[in-house]
C-alpha cells in the first residue's frame, strides 16, 4: 500500500516533520500537497467518473451528493500502512477510520446546526477535486464561537489532517454559479 502515496510521505523523517508542523500550528491542521502518486490519482479519477452519486438535501442542514467508496480506496485508507502514517503524524493511535465520499456542485452547501453534532478528534480530507478557484466558494471553514479558525480551499491531490477540538465545527461554503459545472469531490475521514 505504501507505493500509493508520494515518496515524500513514505519517509519517516518527513512524517515527523509533518507531525512537528501540526503541533506548532495553532489551528491544529496540516496540509500535505501532492499526496497520492499521479498514477493512483488518475486511476481514482477514472473510477469516480462512473460512480453513482446520490443527492442528499435537507434545505436547512445541507445539500450535497454522496457515493459508495470504491473498494480499493476503502482498502487503502483502512490499511495498516496508512493508519500508521496517520498515527505518526497526529501522535494518536488510530485503528480505524470512517470514510465518506462527498461531492459539492453549484448550489450545494452545509450549514452549522445544533442538530448536527460534530465529534472531536482527527479528521482528514483527501481532495479529489480536479480544478478549483477560491471565488467559487465550496471551501471548508472551521469555526469556534462564530469566529473562523481555518479556511481550507480545495487543493487537488492534497491530504489535510485536522485535529478538531471541542466546540469547533466546520461547514462547506455555498458553491456559487461561477463554478459552472465544476464539482468539488473529497474523501472525508473521521478517526
Amino acid at each position, binding site marked *: 500500500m505504501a507505493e500509493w502515496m508520494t515518496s515524500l510521505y513514505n519517509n519517516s523523517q518527513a512524517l515527523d516533520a509533518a507531525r512537528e508542523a501540526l503541533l506548532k500550528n495553532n489551528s491544529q491542521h496540516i496540509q500535505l500537497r501532492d499526496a497520492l502518486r499521479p498514477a493512483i490519482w488518475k486511476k481514482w479519477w477514472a473510477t469516480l467518473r462512473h460512480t453513482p452519486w446520490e443527492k442528499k438535501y*435537507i*434545505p*436547512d*442542514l445541507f445539500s450535497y451528493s454522496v457515493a459508495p467508496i470504491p473498494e480499493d480506496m476503502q482498502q487503502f485508507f483502512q490499511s495498516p500502512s496508512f493508519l500508521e502514517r496517520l498515527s505518526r503524524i497526529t501522535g494518536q493511535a488510530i485503528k480505524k477510520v470512517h470514510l465518506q465520499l462527498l461531492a459539492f456542485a453549484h*448550489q450545494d*452547501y*452545509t*450549514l*452549522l446546526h445544533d442538530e448536527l453534532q460534530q465529534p472531536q478528534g482527527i479528521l482528514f480530507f483527501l481532495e479529489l477535486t480536479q480544478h478549483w478557484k477560491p471565488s467559487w*466558494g465550496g471551501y471548508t*471553514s472551521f*469555526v469556534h464561537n*462564530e469566529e473562523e479558525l481555518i479556511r481550507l480551499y480545495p487543493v487537488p491531490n492534497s491530504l489535510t489532517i485536522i485535529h478538531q477540538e471541542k466546540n469547533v465545527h466546520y*461547514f462547506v*461554503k*455555498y458553491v*456559487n*454559479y*461561477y463554478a459552472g459545472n465544476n464539482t468539488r469531490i473529497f474523501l472525508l475521514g473521521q478517526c
Partner: protein
Amino acid sequence: MTLAYWINPVYLKDNTLMQQFVSNTPFPHIVLPRFFVDKKIQPVSAALLKQEWQEKESDLFQFQQTFDLKTTEHAALQEFYAFFSSKEFIQWIAALTKTKLKQSIDMSGFIYNATDYLLPHDDQLEERKIAYVLNLSSEFSKKDGGELEFFNTQKKHPSQSVKRIQPLFNTLVLFEVSPKSFHQVLEVTTDKQRVSIGGWFHG
C-alpha cells in the same frame, strides 16, 4: 391621515388583506406590489444607497448590510423609519396580520451582489413576530436569481420550495415568523444589485 400619505390607496380600501394573509400557504404571508406612494419611495431608495455598507458572511449568508436604520442620518430614510415604526402603521400591520405587535421594529438595508445568497432558515428569535422585506431594486428578471423562496415543512425541517417571489421594485412582502416560516433568497446570478430594506415587527 399619515397612512394615506405613504401607502398606495388601493390597499387602504382593500378589506380582504387580512383574509389573504392568513390563508396564504405554506405559511401566512402577503405580497403587496406598488405598496408605497411612488413619490415617497423614490427618495428612500436613493438615500439607502448612500448608507454605509458592511460585508456580511457566514455559513448561512453572504450579502452587504447597513446598521439598523434607526440611526440613519439621511432625511428621506429618517422620515421612512419614523413612518414604518409609527403607532399608526404598526397598528395597521397588526390588524392585517392578525398579530399582537409592540411599538418596536428592526430595520436595515441589504444589497445582494452577484453570488450573494441567504440559505433556508426560519428567522425565529424572541420578539420577532412579522418579517418584512421591501424590494428596492429594479429590472430583476427570472434569470437573475434573487427571488425570495418559501418552503413547506416536514418533520420540523423545510422540504420543498413551494413559492417564489421576484424582487420587484416597491413590493412589500410580509410573513409570520414561526417554526414553519422557512425561506431563502436565491443566489443572485447577475451583475445587477438586489437592494432591499428588511427586518421584523416585534411582539
